[in-house]
């Protein structure tokens, strides 16, 4: 079975705080892909990052960083020095090789207060 769990339903932080969004996944496949998407209030789904199961390197892009740990089946997302524009719902997703469906977590709503 494939599953993505985002246990944090909603997080509120004050601007400039750091915040980490958790993602735990389940799959029996050895080859799979993990993703983060952002859904701002305007409603579109914006792709942020992809990680392949065979590449455990963490990644940093500006204020965003991602920590992929196969040992704990987690793919966490940290925003450093959060800004109001970061307010959105963030989705973690899993795609197993050989399948044709992205399994999404239930999303974490992030509110960054000025």
């Amino acid at each position, binding site marked *: 079975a494939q599953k993505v769990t985002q246990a944090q339903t909603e997080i509120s932080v004050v601007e400039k705080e750091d915040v980490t969004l958790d993602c735990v996944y389940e799959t029996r496949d050895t080859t799979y892909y993990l993703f983060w998407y952002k859904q701002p209030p305007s409603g*579109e789904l914006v792709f942020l990052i*992809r990680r392949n199961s065979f590449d455990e390197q963490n990644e940093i892009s500006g204020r965003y960083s991602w920590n992929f740990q196969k040992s704990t089946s987690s793919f966490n997302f940290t925003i450093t020095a959060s800004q109001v524009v970061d307010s959105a719902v963030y989705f973690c997703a899993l795609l197993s090789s050989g399948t*044709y469906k992205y399994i999404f977590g239930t*999303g974490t709503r992030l509110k960054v207060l000025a």
Partner: protein
Amino acid sequence: DTAVSQTPKYLVTQMGNDKSIKCEQNLGHDTMYWYKQDSKKFLKIMFSYNNKELIINETVPNRFSPKSPDKAHLNLHINSLELGDSAVYFCASSQEVGVRNTEAFFGQGTRLTVV
């Protein structure tokens, strides 16, 4: 240039009507999808098409019928609309699964309201 575009963006219709949502991608992708997002923001796969062939039909009622005339288009027709069909429908596309860059790109969504 919009990568994945779907029309219309908003659709308000009465119960029992039939409606269609169109989707086009200009990314040259082989695989296209329809996802449904309910009021709680849950995103659920409805259909996957690869090279115009239906790959996944995720227990969607027969009233929903996807059609892929070519690899760049995947339309969704819904018959006899019900109140419970109200949701945001997203079209998406990706390269062939197994190719390195497998991220899906989504259209802007179609907010369907059935009254």
